[in-house]
């Protein structure tokens, strides 16, 4: 969304124009859902994350806060924080060994590939959880959401250089975790 457009939308949202608020929801809710789902891997929790993100956005607007610009960056930041909190509250899910064993032994290639995919996703999510929240944010925004460094910097409210450094450390850590795991 062009910055101008976004600024107008935000101005209208501040004036509590329901059309603007609806437009914002409809634009970003699918993106935030996808973002949350990638990290959380659970429909219900991802929906909760989206709902909470927008609730916080409304409250911020209502209190005269909220983003002045960079709405998208703001919303992703809120979602990221929610996910970080969620991680703190919830222990990481255990890999379901039985499922895995069943899938591997199954004759049905679709089933086995689906379970294997889930297993791989679980592994990557677990690896991401081991990163610091900021490292995780960089990796997810840069490489899953395909944002530019500049966009990530806006979302994180950090200079581009700092994002680069985080990215470097994050990838090194991720490599270490995922490679170790596959060899372990």
């Amino acid at each position, binding site marked *: 969304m062009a910055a101008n457009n976004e600024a107008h939308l935000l101005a*209208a949202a501040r004036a*509590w124009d*329901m059309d603007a608020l609806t437009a914002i929801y409809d634009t970003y809710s699918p993106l935030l*859902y996808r973002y949350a*789902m990638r990290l959380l891997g659970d*429909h*219900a929790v991802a929906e909760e994350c989206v709902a909470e993100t927008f609730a916080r956005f409304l409250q911020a607007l209502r209190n*005269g806060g909220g983003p002045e610009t960079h709405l998208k960056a703001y919303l992703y930041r809120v979602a990221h924080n929610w996910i970080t909190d969620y991680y703190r509250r919830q222990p990481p899910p255990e890999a379901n060994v039985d499922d895995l064993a069943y899938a591997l032994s199954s004759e049905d290639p679709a089933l086995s590939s689906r379970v294997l995919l889930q297993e791989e996703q679980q592994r990557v999510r677990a690896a991401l959880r081991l990163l610091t929240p900021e490292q995780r944010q960089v990796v997810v925004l840069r490489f899953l959401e395909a944002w530019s460094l500049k966009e990530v910097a806006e979302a994180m409210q950090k200079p581009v250089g700092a994002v680069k450094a985080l*990215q470097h450390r994050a990838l090194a850590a991720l490599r270490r975790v995922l490679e170790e795991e596959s060899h372990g």
Partner: protein
Amino acid sequence: MDELDPRLRKHLDALNRIPPRDPQRAAEGRARFLQMASEMKPEKLPPQAVSLGLFWRLKKWIQPKPPLRKEALKMVNILVAALMAISVVFGGGAAAAYASQDALPGSTLYPVKTVVEKAELAVTTSPQAKAELHLEFAQERAAEAQALVAQGRTNLVPQVAQNMQEHLQAAEQVATQLARQGDADAAARVAVMTSVAAQKLQEAVTHADEHAKPALEAALQRTEEAQARAMKAYAEARQHADANARQTADNSTPEPSAQPGEGTGTPEPQPQGEIFSLKGAVESITGNTWVVNGQTVTIASDAKVKGQVQVGDTVEVHGYVDANGQTIVVQAEVVTPENGQPGGSGEKVTFQGAVEAQNGNQWVISGKTVNITEETKQHGQIAIGSQVMVVAEVQADGSLNAKVINLMEAGATMTPEPTDTMMPPNGTPEPTDTMMPPNGTPEPTDTMMPPNGTPEPTDTVEPPNATPEPTDTMMPPMPTPEPTDTVEPPNATPEPTDTMMPPMPTPTGMPGGGGGEGGGNND
């Protein structure tokens, strides 16, 4: 640059394969959001009138800007105390105080708003700051009047109008003092802010029904009188400043009398002393220099800028032309562009000059071609060579449709340089700036002096020869054909002080003030 090696890429790609969102859940989530949004909707005010009132100000203070020092801290402390007291009384904490920003008379939270205002005034010691605060509150009252009118709660209008006058009077006392001290910039700020208050009130008058109209019109008249006196004070301040400058000429006064045409090379006459209002799209932001609708303006370092202004926003800026010929913006706010009106159209210009040609429905006045339409009201016998004042609406294509053409008789005081001042700087279609004839002003210099700028403005001030039938065209109740859209209704007021935008010798390097203040965040 992308340090993602293929193996890592493959791992991460696994997360890109997520199942589609359950449409049922998505729809439920959306419904919950919409319900929450409508439940949280603030007590209604027309967005423009309210949007960033009190709390915007508080926020500004709480993030102190460099020029605000001890006083600001003290103020914050007291405000915090006031807000805490309020939250005890109202139990709603910050929410109550916040909500009070939008409060209208008659609402439970309105007293909170007035208490906070009083607290602000109580802790402000500098006379200038105090005057400006009074003027902000006067503007706030005018905005409330608009809101009340919009809601049809006209019984509360007189109370608001009364309070507005009190603030205006308080501000005026300071303005007189500033004038004597020769503080032209300070006096200019007062004049500009008073003029904005008048504009906002005019807007309320335009939409008022017959119940609210009498009180509002009376208030408007008094506001315009205050505006005229503020302009006069400004003129006096400039005279004092000039005198001071002459006295200390060898004492290295920064720039004794401006070098106007530096940018364009055309030494245009100084339009100093004019104040202007301009509405349009922000075309660029470079530090404290904005280009609004083709006009380059400098945002004063302590300008009151409402909202985060970005390129592409539609803004209203109000300011004055300083002694160096720079257009200094004192107040700016983001406005929502009117529906169906791309920024830049639906705006009005007011200018004066000689009729140079009359070719059917196209006349050339002061170098500009204006279209005469069915709606055009002509007053007086207008022929080639006549001096006229024109109120024209800027069309989407930049052409001008005349709304009113008023003959100004030869005897009427004209601005020293009627034609030149109207020329837009770079051939852009002229902006909204309005300029009013200075008829009736004693001082020759004050191109801006409104007719009743004399100490006791009465009907008699209206110079009989100024316009053949002045009332008809210039009085507030005049049913302007398209009054609604612009917040500046220059042509409907008896003596709007706003002057047209000066030619602005391409405001040069902008040496001035404290850097990129005023929300100049560029994208």
